[in-house]
């Protein structure tokens, strides 16, 4: 809690450094006169010192009111809840795909360390972690959306922008729009999580209880899935908890490139028009989630692994 208060103070201090502060959007409007600005300033309490403004903002926030978003002409909370479903859809699918692929790749390469597959997985992970996300997105658009694949008598192409073609709900259409952004987002997670899973699994396989299990004559399958897998997952839970904030915060870069109507684009639009209340709300919300999921990660770790004790 004190941490969040500190974050909000620092963010407010940074954002109010912008010339014009919350009134920047009005300053760019030629129909608004100096007198209007002065009146607006007075009405909004902007002629008062910054710390008074901050306390005013804070008193509203604790009541769940993040103010009015000038770039969306609605309240910040409405703007955010408007965009949240699209981001959850994209991020949810990216997380599920990454989990399935990352975990299985990690386990597979840990069970055959220093084999060809292991080297392939490691190399892939290095590429994934080094890939500039925006360029990867552009290249996928170039390959799948601009040109498309021709083969087997079909022309195979994927949409490169938006969340759907029509207003009415069409599952196939929605999934086609999801594919490219999901692949882009998954690459980094698959890379990170597979390496993490591999080292965690290698660690577990070395332990005494796995040796005991194999000494009892249990099959390899039983050992891997009943004994090793569960314990190797524990550290991964922490890592996944730490990436949860992005689930809600959205991906600024990927969403802008694929014109995905989610939180990341909401933020970029707000930034281009300097929408003070929305920027503040977005940054506070995402910081809150980071702090919260850090806590969740700690608690989950202690709960799953009884050897860890927090005083």
């Amino acid at each position, binding site marked *: 809690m004190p941490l969040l208060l*500190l974050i909000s103070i620092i963010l407010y201090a940074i954002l109010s450094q912008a010339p014009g502060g919350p009134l920047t959007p009005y300053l760019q409007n030629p129909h608004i006169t100096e007198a209007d600005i002065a009146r607006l300033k007075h009405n909004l309490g902007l002629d008062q010192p910054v710390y008074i403004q901050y306390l005013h903002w804070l008193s509203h926030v604790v009541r769940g009111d993040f103010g009015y978003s000038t770039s969306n002409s609605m309240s910040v909370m409405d703007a955010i809840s408007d965009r949240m479903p699209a981001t959850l859809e994209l991020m949810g699918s990216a997380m599920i795909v990454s989990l399935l692929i990352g975990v299985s790749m990690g386990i597979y390469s840990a069970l055959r360390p220093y084999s060809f597959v292991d080297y392939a997985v490691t190399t892939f992970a290095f590429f994934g972690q080094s890939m*500039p996300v925006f360029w990867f997105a552009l290249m996928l658009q*170039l390959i799948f959306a601009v040109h498309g694949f021709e083969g087997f008598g079909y022309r195979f192409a994927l949409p490169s922008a938006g969340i759907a073609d029509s207003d009415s709900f069409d599952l196939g259409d929605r999934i086609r729009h999801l594919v490219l952004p999901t692949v882009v987002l998954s690459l980094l997670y698959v890379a990170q999580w597979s390496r993490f899973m591999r080292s965690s699994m290698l660690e577990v396989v070395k332990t005494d209880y796995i040796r005991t299990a194999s000494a009892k004559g249990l099959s390899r399958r039983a050992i891997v899935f009943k004994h090793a897998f569960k314990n190797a997952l524990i550290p991964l839970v922490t890592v996944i908890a730490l990436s949860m904030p992005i689930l809600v915060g959205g991906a600024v870069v990927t969403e802008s490139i694929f014109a995905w109507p989610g939180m990341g684009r909401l933020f970029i639009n707000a*930034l281009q028009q300097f929408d003070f209340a929305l920027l503040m709300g977005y940054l506070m919300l995402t910081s809150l989630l980071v702090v919260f999921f850090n806590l969740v990660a700690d608690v989950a770790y202690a709960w799953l692994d009884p050897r860890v004790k927090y005083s």
Partner: protein
Amino acid sequence: MAATLPLQGQPQPAPEAEFKESRNKVWKRFRKHRIAPVGAVVLILLALVAIFANFITPADPNFIDQAHWNGEPLAPGVAGHLLGTDEDGRDLLARLMFGARISLTVAIVTVILEVAIGTVLGAVAGYYGGWVDFVLMRLTDVVLSIPLLPLLLVLTAIVAATSNKAALGPISIVLIIGLLQWPAVARIERALFLSLREREYAEAARALGNPDSRIIFRHLLPNAVAPIIVQATLDIANVIILESTLSFLGFGIQPPTASWGNMLANATSNMTIAPWVAIFPGLCILITVLAINYLGDGLRDALDPNMR
């Protein structure tokens, strides 16, 4: 861990010999990593290209080839442009070379700044402990809790607006990224200093009446360098990605100065007719970052075998 500590009572090699021997070992372990030396070679070549860009460039990076350019990017190989031109008829290879200069310089200077801040804050926090530690660690918590990319975007937008320029210089970019990237270094350094300050030689240095600053920087810091070198190497890769992302979104290095990121920003509109304009800058980023990541991995194996 314990097994690698020398046993008490065993004859110790002279400090100088030990240093030489350990340096040989580090070099041996580094070479054993198959790809890290390749990464190092790639990076040295890139650095040479960036440094001597003036001399080896095929053209001025901002020169518009009006003799051949007809409003559309020229394809690779046309009119002597090895990699073609961008949408303004400027030689792509030349812009890539000068872009390397900007991207690498920004990344290296940023990391130097970040390491300086992180090392000092981490060392002070770890050495003194108590409320100094508490305050500094809350500060790192704050910086780590705000999502990095949105915060960077907000800061660059505000700095650009207050300095009344549409263009942000490379120096502002360095300062903004550097002032936000140090917590990782600070945390590593703090953890090391927490244990280093309890060592006998630290106590001996204190007993001899050395001032704290001398103990921190002369006696303890040299023993806390290896993990920082690894972290700094990997951070150079991070900063290259961050800077190019900012530049791509239009908040970083501003045209006409070429950076790998802003070259891609301009490429998107012509991607259907001129894919090469989009392909090459990104390929440069990928190769550079990949080389750095492999180098960092090799350095980790070489400098600190226990860290794996």
